[in-house]
């Protein structure tokens, strides 16, 4: 029988949130075996995850581990109970390259990284001429993973063309989309991989300054990056023949707009994070007025792989619309939310149903690109996921947020939700974005409250198009997308709201009443007890004037006999 030689526990933010630290404490109490804190393997639904590494090189993983003696003993005794297996469908579809080391090595152990191929990409790059490195990147077909999809090699070429070394390469780690956590996971789990990509970029473009602009809401990513930077300095990996690369981290204060490159640079310079008109582009005049290039975390995460395996090999994966793999943060109405990595060109159907385990009968659409993106109806799920095909549907790939929308979600409310975010996050500079998104949001609020009219839909469409055309940066240029996309594919739902005061998903509180079906009722009075406003009478009738539609009674009902019905139909 195999013996456990070490235990790994996933302690990225997701693992900690699921209670991983308590499990760690119990493990340390229960055994003297080495317990290694690793990052995230992307299976959020199974956290906390513990991996028992065996002396034969194999390992057994336990999922949803609780800090109980039983669960700990199960692990230490390699019991069958509690074992975690990656779902077969996901295993078949996933291609883990960028995240290969995530959750496998200690994020803060330099040797662990180098022992697993770390810094080989940089070593290889430094044996090449800088322009050869850029050629390799171009050959790989890598496009910006932050959402724009601009060819990375070309961008590098622009910066490399600038004379001298007084140039800056910035890593955009201001991952702000609600529901997106690809970059966080990568930085927390394999910070060295991102830094290696940056160092390769510095070598190729002639930059001598590297800055990571990371949102302050990612303390663990910042901590791990700081440790990694110290290790790089200690090992002098940043010392090139002709210059030493200075690496620093700037913590962003949480403004969504600072993910836009000119706003990000303004923020770095100590100014208010507001975008400016381009040109000049950052490669001409960026940080401190010097040539500057900005890439996303995931883009840098791909770079060492390209150098290691060669651009041509890298490009063999993926489709015309994008090369390599892409990380997606899967969330919403599905069975296996988490972080997945698939080849570009994988269809939405494969991602949502096969990998995500969503119920095909229960899915209405998927929202890609977060608040800047759009929804894609289930009828179009055969679309391959890459930059160009998503854009043609009115959505965008964005940084990789993917939210599955079930049948019981209202599309108007979904649009309102995203507009609520973007209209608040507008920096306030451009008239169209600042006032226009507010007006759109107000109209959506009216519609979900049952107070809209058909003319509102035209106003939404008209304003939406104008906001896209009349805004300086990506925030305003994409903010109307969720509204325009839902209007495009789900106009009937809007029309039902404004013309019939009806929300087919029964989600919009103003258009819904709560009904207790007495046929199945066992008169347990759980609903009465759970109601925070005493809206339910002793004979189980809900007073619609008092009820706040909070769903407490629905959740409390053991017979599931309480339902949401169209307003006025609770009879």
């Amino acid at each position, binding site marked *: 029988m195999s013996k456990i030689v070490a235990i790994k526990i996933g302690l990225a933010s997701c693992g900690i949130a699921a209670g991983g630290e308590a499990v760690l404490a119990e493990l340390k109490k229960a055994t003297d075996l080495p317990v290694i804190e690793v990052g995230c393997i992307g299976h959020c639904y199974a956290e906390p995850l513990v991996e028992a590494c065996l002396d034969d090189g194999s390992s057994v993983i336990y999922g949803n581990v609780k800090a109980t003696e039983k669960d700990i003993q199960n692990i230490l005794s390699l019991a069958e109970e509690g074992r975690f297996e990656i779902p077969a469908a996901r295993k078949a579809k996933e291609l883990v390259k960028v995240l290969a080391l995530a959750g496998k090595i200690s994020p803060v152990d330099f040797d662990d990284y180098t022992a697993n191929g770390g810094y080989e990409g940089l070593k290889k790059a430094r044996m090449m001429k800088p322009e050869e490195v850029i050629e390799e990147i171009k050959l790989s077909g890598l496009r910006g993973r932050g959402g724009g999809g601009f060819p990375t090699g070309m961008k590098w070429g622009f910066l490399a063309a600038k004379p001298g070394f007084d140039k800056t390469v910035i890593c955009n780690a201001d991952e702000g989309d609600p529901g997106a956590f690809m970059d966080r996971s990568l930085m927390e789990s394999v910070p060295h991989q991102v830094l290696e990509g940056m160092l390769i970029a510095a070598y190729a473009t002639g930059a001598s300054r590297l800055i990571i602009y990371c949102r302050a809401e990612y303390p663990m990513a910042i901590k791990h990056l700081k440790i990694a930077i110290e290790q790089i300095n200690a090992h002098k990996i940043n010392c090139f023949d002709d210059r030493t690369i200075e690496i620093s981290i700037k913590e962003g204060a949480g*403004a969504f*707009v600072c993910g836009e490159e000119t706003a990000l640079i303004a923020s770095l310079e100590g100014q*208010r994070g*507001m975008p*400016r*008109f381009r*040109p000049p582009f950052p490669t001409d005049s960026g940080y401190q007025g010097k040539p500057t290039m900005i890439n996303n975390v995931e883009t840098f995460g791909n770079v060492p792989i390209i150098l290691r395996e060669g651009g041509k090999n890298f490009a063999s994966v993926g489709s015309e619309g994008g090369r390599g793999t892409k990380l997606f943060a899967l969330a919403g109405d599905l069975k296996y939310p988490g972080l997945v990595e698939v080849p570009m060109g994988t269809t939405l159907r494969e991602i949502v149903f096969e990998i995500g385990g969503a119920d095909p009968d229960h899915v209405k659409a998927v929202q890609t690109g977060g608040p800047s993106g759009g929804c894609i109806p289930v009828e179009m799920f055969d679309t391959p996921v890459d930059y160009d095909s998503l854009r043609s549907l009115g959505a965008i790939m964005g940084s990789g947020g993917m939210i599955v929308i079930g049948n019981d979600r209202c599309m108007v409310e979904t649009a309102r939700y995203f507009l609520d975010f973007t*209209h*608040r*996050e*507008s*920096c*306030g*500079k*451009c*008239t*169209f974005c*600042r*006032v*226009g*998104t*507010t*007006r759109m949001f*107000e109209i959506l609020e009216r519609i979900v409250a049952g107070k809209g009219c058909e003319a509102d839909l035209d*106003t939404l469409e008209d*304003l939406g198009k*104008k906001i896209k*055309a*009349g*805004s*300086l940066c990506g925030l305003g240029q994409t903010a109307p997308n969720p509204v325009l996309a839902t209007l495009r594919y789900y106009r009937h739902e809007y029309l039902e709201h404004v013309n019939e005061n009806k929300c087919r998903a029964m989600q919009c509180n103003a258009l819904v009443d709560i009904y207790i079906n007495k046929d199945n009722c066992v008169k347990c009075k759980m609903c009465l007890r759970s109601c925070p406003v005493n809206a339910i009478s002793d004979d189980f009738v809900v007073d619609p004037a008092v009820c706040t539609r909070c769903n407490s009674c629905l959740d409390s009902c053991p017979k599931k006999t309480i339902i949401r019905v169209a307003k006025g139909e609770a009879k």
Partner: protein
Amino acid sequence: MNIEFFLDGKAVSAQPGQTVMDVAKANGISIPGLCGEKRISKTTSCFVCVVRDKKTGKFLPSCSARPVPGQEIEVTHPDVLEMRRTALNLLLSEHNGDCEAPCTLACPAHAAVEEYVRAAANGDFQEALRIIKERIPMPMTIGRVCPRFCEKQCRRNVDGEPVAINEFKRLAADKCYESYMEELPVSCGKHVAVVGGGPAGVAAAYYLRRLGIDATIFEMMPKAGGMTRYGIPEYRMPKDLLDKELAHLEKMGVKFEFGKKLGENLQLDELQKKYDAVIVAVGCWQASGMRCEGEELAVAGIDFLRDVIENDCHAANPGKVLVVGGGNTAMDCVRTSVRLGSPEVYCIYRRSEAEMPAEKIEIHEAKEEGVNFQFLTAPVKLEKRGDKLVLTCQKMVLGEPDASGRRKPVPEAGSDFEIEADTVIAAIGQKTAAPAGLPVNRYGCIEVGADAVTVAEKLYAAGDCVSGAATVVEGVASGRRAALAVARDLLGMPMPEEPSINVSRGKWQDLTRDELVVLRDNLSDAPREKLNYIPLTERKTTFKEVCSTMTPEQIAAEGKRCIECSCSDKHDCKLRQFAEEAGCKTDAYSGVRQAAVYDVRHPEIIQDRGKCIKCGVCVKICKEVVNKSLLSLQKRGFKSCVSTAFGVPLPDSCRECGECINACPTGALDWRKKR
């Protein structure tokens, strides 16, 4: 190397560094923009200056975009203009300010209320009168008889009582009428006939003269003044004052011909032949009947009043009087009857007191003088029994609101009753008796064109004969408009239009005391100054003026109650100017406005954030030109605002250079003292 490109198809050349807007300007094409300032780095925020790249279809802010060789830029394409209009409409939709004060907007003549109130309160009555007479040529009269549209919209109503605006006109006119004389241009040689010497005719002649056009007023009565003379009783409008007001016109060179009635001894076609233009302002002199059996036995209200006035208030005692009607004429009739010695005076009105169209103060004063009001009472039949008149009446109840918004009275079955009287006066309303040869509309009023005064070529109409019976101030506004139309047609002068863009913080009814934006520093919270009435016994027995003009001290105190609502920047606000030029609407988009937050902690400077468009020019001026960095943009989204660090008052280091104020495109930053 110059860059060659195209603006609306025209080949143009840009020097290196020039923006599209620079090149457009150099080529005589003006593009509006709110956020550009030569001395600072680009802000590129307002998007009012957008143009379109024809090839890519992309909209570009022309203040920042530099042309590319061969680029075809669309500057005046309808889509481009629509984008600009939308940007401006969005800015208007968040703008929280009053371009113009509500009093001025409410005034039919658009008199600059705030300005004359300030001048009179400061004791400068000459200046006050000058401002008043820009719009109101009969301030002595209107200062007494106006129903005060302005005061009804005054924001001080929130505190209970409006500023006594009309009293400012009255005092300024009473004090300076003799000494004040307009600067008059020499006559241009054109001569206009004005038919009718009432408020509209007088105003038309007055403004014609001020525009350098001679005017002769043809009046059917022995004296001028129209209804202000023959319809308004002496106790409200002393006729010696009216004479003074009209004498001033004569001093200005306006000629009068009396006893001339159109269609009788005066022919329109002859006037048209002899004069360069004719303005018809014959008023509304035909009384409406009671529309009941025996109505011919009643005296018409306006005839009754005219009779008393023509007899210098020495008419016979009318005995017991019934006045039917609820308007100001009815009030004039009941109160005149009291003064003639009537032992019993009734006012019979078919709706309730709340619906009465008469001024509240008139109703109040009539009650004080002992008038008996019979509300919800309608006449059914009038008959003569012996030497008495008997009016059969019916009680009414209020039903659903009618087209006027007032609740419609409906008869109560079996409620008939009789009242006996010596005199029955019908003060129901008036109709226009349009002179023959003029087009009339379905109300019998003279039909006019879109400018509200033009009837035909060089033929105009103004006042009650166009609008139906209205107020003196509406009459003078209409007369002024006719004069301006004449100047437009005869002299080619552009007709000055009122600004079409008037953002408002809202009606006082929708505001609370805390929401009133007070930028002046010495607002008084004292109650409204009281009018000085003569004793009641004297009121009931004589035709002396009921109350006297306020004293200069009272006016000075009252002036401190004025909030001075209008925007300090109303005359040079770029947002307003461009919005007007672009044909914007203040209600194109509805939604929440910016919070009415303002800062008057600095002794010289106001920051009125509700008017800020977030262009950021002040921030950059202070930083890049003044080298102070006292201002910054704060918060995000719709709540973005310009403020000092930590919201502290502008510090001593602000040397009040005024650069930010000069650069501010709106009234968001301004001097506290209105200039």
